[in-house]
């Protein structure tokens, strides 16, 4: 495993400090709570802040107006945003921009970096598989088909097709949008394309962009899970039953240590994959990312289950913060594909590498 270079460490320190512009340093979740269930489920003002900080161009080349920082840096922000339950479609936007850069689709990139245009990737055709080419076709310059589970609130959709990338404005004729409320208070959209005229930008790096997005999302999940675990530990220390803090009960202690084990594995796997990506290693990189995302997904599910159980009845109330974390994990753990699909993909790559 290559070491993180020193400048990356310094970048991360600075990013972490400035993140308080979006994630309050005191851990307050008031903004998060208030934004729930109000379409689009996030704040356009906060979005402008993200743009001003330059974070939307974090991974974009400097010649395109980006910061050209590494995955380790993006990961640091992703974890902080996960811990802060940030509802803005930040990772989604990074994914879309990386697709657009890879496809040399110059339109929109500038206004996207300035926060004026929000671009969301529309890459998935069934909600439980990694199929960026699926669900749509292009015939005679027109886009047909459907994509699912797209982040809401976008002005433009970056649609992956078998032929390349298509950029579709949200008000295009022939576009039908089915809006869905999610349990964490955000929204997603299923899209249907009915013969929408579009330009296709060839893009050979769709898989690369998808895998990087999965890796960053693993960091987001880990951030959410880690803070949910911290909140749960604090509850275990304070809450008393049968005249003792419930955190003193051995059965709960042993279950808590299992979360700790999974958390550390997840952190190690994510960091190793990030180092491999930043180090330009391609061999086994995809497998490392599948592992990291699978571990983080399992961690998210484990923490959601245990946080709910360990909090007991109080966790079901709207007042208790832990419920916000459980809902976020419910929504995010399933993003991209179920763990068993990731395992199947891992085995295919393992055979191919052997």
């Amino acid at each position, binding site marked *: 495993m290559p070491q993180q270079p020193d400048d990356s460490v310094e970048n991360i320190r600075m990013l972490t400090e400035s993140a308080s512009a979006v994630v309050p340093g005191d851990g307050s979740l008031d903004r998060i709570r208030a934004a729930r269930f109000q379409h689009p489920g996030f704040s356009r003002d906060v979005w402008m802040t993200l743009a001003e900080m330059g974070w939307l161009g974090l991974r974009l080349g400097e010649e395109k107006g980006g910061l050209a920082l590494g995955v380790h840096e993006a990961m640091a922000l992703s974890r902080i945003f996960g811990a802060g339950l940030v509802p803005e479609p930040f990772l989604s936007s990074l994914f879309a921009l990386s697709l657009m850069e890879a496809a040399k689709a110059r339109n929109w990139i500038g206004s996207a970096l300035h926060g004026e245009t929000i671009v969301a990737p529309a890459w998935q055709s069934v909600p439980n598989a990694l199929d960026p080419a699926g669900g749509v076709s292009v015939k005679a310059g027109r886009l047909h088909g459907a994509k699912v*589970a797209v982040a809401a609130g976008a002005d433009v959709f970056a649609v992956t097709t078998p032929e390349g990338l298509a950029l579709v404005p949200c008000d295009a004729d022939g576009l039908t949008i089915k809006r869905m409320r999610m*349990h964490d208070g955000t929204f997603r959209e299923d899209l249907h394309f009915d013969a929408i005229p579009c330009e296709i930008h060839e893009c050979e790096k769709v898989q690369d962009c998808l895998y990087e997005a999965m890796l960053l999302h693993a960091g987001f999940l880990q951030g959410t899970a880690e803070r949910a675990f911290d909140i749960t530990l604090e509850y275990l220390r304070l809450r008393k039953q*049968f005249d003792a803090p419930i955190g003193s009960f051995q059965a709960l202690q042993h279950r808590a240590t299992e979360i700790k084990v999974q958390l550390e594995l997840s952190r190690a796997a994510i960091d190793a994959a990030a180092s491999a990506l930043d180090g330009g290693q391609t061999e086994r990189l995809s497998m490392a990312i599948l592992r990291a995302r699978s571990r983080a997904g399992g961690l998210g599910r484990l923490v959601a289950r245990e946080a709910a*159980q360990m909090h*007991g*009845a109080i966790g079901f109330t*709207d007042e208790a913060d832990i419920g916000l974390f459980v*809902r976020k994990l419910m*929504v995010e753990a399933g993003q991209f594909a*179920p763990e068993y699909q990731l395992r199947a993909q891992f085995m295919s790559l393992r055979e191919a590498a052997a």
Partner: protein
Amino acid sequence: MTNPPFIADHPPHPDFNAMSDDAFRAVVRDFVENHYPDIPRFAQRRLRWPEVRPWYGVLAQKGWIAPTWPRELGGMGLGAGKHLVLIEEFERFGCARVHDIGTVMLGPLLMEYGTQAQRDHYLPRILRGEDIWAQGYSEPGAGSDLAALRTTAELDGDHWVISGQKTWVTLGADANMAFVLARTDKAAKKQAGISFLLVPTDATGVTVRPIENLEGHAEFCEIFFDAVRIPKANIVGEVNRGWTMAKALLGHERVFIGAPRLSANALSRLEALARGNGAWEDPVFRDRFAGLAMDLADLGDLFETYVQRLRTGASIGADVGILKIFQSELYQRISEELMQVAGSHAGIKLEEGGDSRFDAAGTYLAARPTTIFGGSTEVMRNVLARASLNLPK
């Protein structure tokens, strides 16, 4: 709140237990399919009283509101096996669950421990839907430690004066009556000195406050008692002997909490979802589904042995926890598989009135409280370890 009574003018029931299971099943199915009112089926959340009232009325009028009560008291007099058939058919059709604390909990308690006057007064009112009951056991901060209650009741002349707070009262806002455990002897040890009292929720000093959950529903309430005065006669059983009765009630309830129906519903959802989105053809998914389906069928076999023991009057003891532990954990495992299979759609929040038959997240959330309420899995495992496995404290 007053509930205008339903008329219970049904003819005397035949002895359903004498019928074959299949014949009885046909009767139930026919009734449900022809008389279920125009209210939601397969509801993911508990319906509130105004929503479920029409169905309560249909059942009351038919004389089917109290399946396990003796026929001479206005019930159906069903044995455990027939009761299971009834439940299965109701679930198959997606019937809403009516407010049943009165029929399931208070009724049987009064039959065993109540005075004749109490039986004569309260039982018919339950059958007619005049009284909707709530159960006040849990208190803030006590959680699974039910006996750590701080609500008190003191005798003042001909009245009990109740002060304190109950929480996690299921559908408490719909009830006009509540039964409450209160401490009537502060000097006694934890489990001793507790009595079982009957309180109208419109009495002066009672405040009912809904607890809004993250979905914005108020399935649960808090009830506050501020020097509430109720007649001295509103006690069931002897003074300071309420704990034993409450525990007995829970034990009996647990067999039915352990019934496979929640898990069976969830598994049907899982099959429907997987058939819809392609997972059904995936051998890896099928392996996991098979494991869950086998778990469910084994649970059915185990449940049947407990039902037989109830039927023959054999005692069950601490082992009854086994059913609830396994069924609630299975329910959760199925719901987690639903979330896996739903992928990026897993977190969708069903719109009010939406079709719950593919609702992964709703099932996931509905499954959470089952390992907490009615005896948390942790506490039940403690009890099982000591009482059934004879392991040291």
